[in-house]
Structure formats: C-alpha cells, structure tokens
C-alpha cells in the first residue's frame, strides 16, 4: 500500500546565531509521509537543511514515546499541537492537510528563556522540584502491598497527578505564564499518598515560594493549561494546592 504524502509550508521560529534575536523563517517540505511524527518531519527538514549547507533547526526531543516531557514546540498556537492529550513526538503528520501552513514557535514565558530556535531553558521547573518535590522521611524497604492500605480512588488520583511529565505546556498555554498546574500536580501527587503526606505542609509552602521566585505568573482560572496539557492534568489539583497552601501558611507553625 502506497504511503500517503502531503506538501506543507512551515513558519519556524529561528533564534540565535545568524538569526540574532529571532524571527519566523519560511520553509516548504514536499512529500511528507502522513505516518511520520511531527519530530520526524523536523528530522527530514534538518537533513534537507544540512544538505543545503544551512543551519539545522534546534529542537528538543528524547524518548519520542510521549513520556519524558522533553519535546516542546507551540504548533499553530497550541503547545504540543492540535491533538488533545498528546505530546509533540506523538503527534503525526496525518493531523495536517496537504497545503497547510504550520507555524512552529518555542514555549514562551519569561521563566522559559529561549536558548536557540525552539529550545527553551526549563530549569525553573527543576528549581521548583528541588524546593520540595520529593520525600525525605525514611520510608524503609519496599513495603508489602497490604502494609500501607491506600484506597483505589486515592491511588488513582495520585497517579493521575503523577502522570505530569513536567514539559511546561501549561506555562506555554497560560496567558499569565503561570506554573500552577505543574506545581499543583507535584504537590497533589506527593501529598495524596501516605509516604508523601508526612511532609506535605512544609512542601507546599516551599514549592509555591520557589514558583513565585522563578517569576511565573498568577493563576486566574482561565483553564487553558488543562485544555493543552498532554497528560490532561486537572485544574482540581490547583484548588487542592491552594487549599493546602492556605492551611499550611495560616494553620500550621511551618515556615518555608
């Protein structure tokens, strides 16, 4: 069976080197197989650019299985592209039509400075995790499954929050560049389970303070993050984080 192919036009954000402070550059790519992933399409573009002795487009990728959170890109105004609940690497060219013009830009936020082309520095997320996104109490050896009873609903909720891959699409989608969906997913995931609950009061203050320090914006419940999240993390987590933060700051003796 012959593979279906399409011809596309690309407007790609190039920044750094010969492109200086950045601009959208036009490319056209013919005979793109619709079974290619979006990143494979970029691989083909880069092969072509290298053959023409031009600088290839820098973009981030790692597992290409939709679980590592390394790929980014805002495709036609949507972080990770038009397909719901999907990362860029799992987006395929069959989602586009012959003759389409596709605009590709980096994740934009003050706290995600562009390194080059489509690559942004997301180490502000690492700083938030380092501030408290871990468990430091001794939890001993791996427990027997029945040693710490956890209700199914609760473990499901913790797992749903834990599916956050920390890609930063929530920040990219947010008109306020707020990182509350990311931070709340981590707060919620850890505080929902028994081992993480112990330090939850201190953790929520530390992580929110670091999030503010990194210069992210404030949530105004626009909910674009939830709609664009490749893991479909719910904004219910933000309410949970707010609740925990208020309880911790006003109702406990903890001070982060």
């Amino acid at each position: 069976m012959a593979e279906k192919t399409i011809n596309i036009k690309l407007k790609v954000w190039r920044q750094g080197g010969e492109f200086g402070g950045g601009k959208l550059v036009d490319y056209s790519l013919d005979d793109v197989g619709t079974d290619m992933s979006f990143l494979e399409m970029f691989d083909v573009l880069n092969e072509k650019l290298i053959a023409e002795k031009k600088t290839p487009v820098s973009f981030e990728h790692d597992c290409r299985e939709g679980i590592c959170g390394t790929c980014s890109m805002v495709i036609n105004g949507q972080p990770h592209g038009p397909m719901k609940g999907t990362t860029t690497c799992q987006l395929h060219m069959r989602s586009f039509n012959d003759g389409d013009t596709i605009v590709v830009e980096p994740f934009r936020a003050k706290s995600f400075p562009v390194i080059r082309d489509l690559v942004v520095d997301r180490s502000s997320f690492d700083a938030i995790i380092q501030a408290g996104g871990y468990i430091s109490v001794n939890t001993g050896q791996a427990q027997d499954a029945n040693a710490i009873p956890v209700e199914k609903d609760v473990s499901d909720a913790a797992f749903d929050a834990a599916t956050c891959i920390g890609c930063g699409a929530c920040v990219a989608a947010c008109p306020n560049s707020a990182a509350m969906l990311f931070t709340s997913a981590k707060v919620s995931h850890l505080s929902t389970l028994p081992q993480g609950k112990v330090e939850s009061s201190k953790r929520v203050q530390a992580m929110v303070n670091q999030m503010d320090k990194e210069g992210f914006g404030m949530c105004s419940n626009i909910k674009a993050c939830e709609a664009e999240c490749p893991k479909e993390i719910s904004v219910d987590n933000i309410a949970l984080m707010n609740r925990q933060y208020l309880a911790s700051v006003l109702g406990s003796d903890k001070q982060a």
Partner: protein
Amino acid sequence: MNWFIQFLTSSIGRKLIMSLTGLFLILFLPVHLVGNLQLLMNDGGEAFNVYADMMGHNAFIQFTAKGLYFFILLHAVQGVIIYMKNKNASGQKYAKSTNANATWASKNMIWLGLLLLIFIFIHMGDFWFAMKFQEWDQAELGREMIAYNIEGQSVELKNLYAKVNYSFTNPLIVGVYVLSMVGLMFHLLHGFASAFQTLGLNHKKYTPAIELLGKLYSIIIPLAFAIIPILHYAGVVGK
C-alpha cells in the same frame, strides 16, 4: 509578621485577596439591588426616598459602606497589580495564538474590571454625590424636599427619586448603565466560580452547583439592575 507579609504578596495570597473581596462584592450586589427595585414601584418615589434616607442615616449601613469602598479599591488595585505582574511574567507574544480553550471573559477580567471601576465613579457622581453634596437644580428636578406621611407623622425627605428619574431620561446615561451591566455579567460569569476555585473550594459534589448558581447569578442580577434605567427611560415607571 514577616511570614504574613510574604503570604499576602505570594501568588496564592494575592489571589486570596481577589477572591475574598470579590465574594464580598458579590454579596453586596443583591443588597443594592433590593433597594433599587423600589424605583419600579410607581408610587411617585415614596418607597425609594424613604429607603435612601434610611441608608444615609443608619449607622450600620454607613459603617459597612466604608468597608465596601475599601474593598472595591482593594479589589481594583490588587487586580491591576496581578495584571501587571502577569504581563511581566509572560514572554514574547505568539505569532499565532489560538487560546481556543479559554472563555473570553476569563482572559479579559482586567478590562471588564476597569470598565466597572469607571462605571462606579460615574455612578457615585450621579447619585451619591448628588444626594450628599450637589446643589439641587429646581428647574430640572422640582422641589428638593418632599413631604411624606409616615405612620401618622409628616416627614420631609430629599427627593432622590426625581434625580434618578431625570437622569434616566438621558439616553447616554441609560446606555452607559446598560453597557456596564453587560460588562458586569461577563465579569461575574468568570469571577463567581473562579473565587471558589481560588479558595480551594473545589468539590465533586458542590462545584457543579456553584457553577450553575454563578451562571444564574451573573445573568439575573445585572439584568435586574439594567431593567431599571430602561423602564425609566421608556416611561413605564416614573414620569
């Protein structure tokens, strides 16, 4: 108290202030509306004038009013600060932005809010200032004081009703009032449920009810406010 200042200037602290002041203003609106609805009674303004006089002289109302002015300003100032900080946090604008998955109101709260702030100043100038400080224009409004027989006693009250009725013969003023109420509707459509989410009051059983109540409230309250100038302008009441 260092921690407390840090709390109030944290992202969640600032949002908490927005939420609580917003909820206070949400509680205030129906109270204001109940008073206003007396403008529709077609009794020559007696009920409204008696009510306006009571509002101007009741110690509890006067005390609460000061709180109200403070909360309106706090809500507005905090809103502007949050808007500026968020502008500062966001990077370069996208060349192609869809934002398809967010409501128009949620992205324009600052502009809707500023529209309402301007409206509040116009509104205070129209009636509050007129009631308390402005010279009475007899040619336009007739006699300033009007006598009512209340519980067998004759009482002279200021005829604010005449001022309201006269103002609402001006299509420009009616237009500003109606437009502002449309703005209020959109502001509330996002703000009502959002205030609860910010407080962390998100619950499988109650959130759908809060959202429904928010929608009903956001439509009914501004509509009831807007009907008053329209009916006065149309001459259905007053005249």
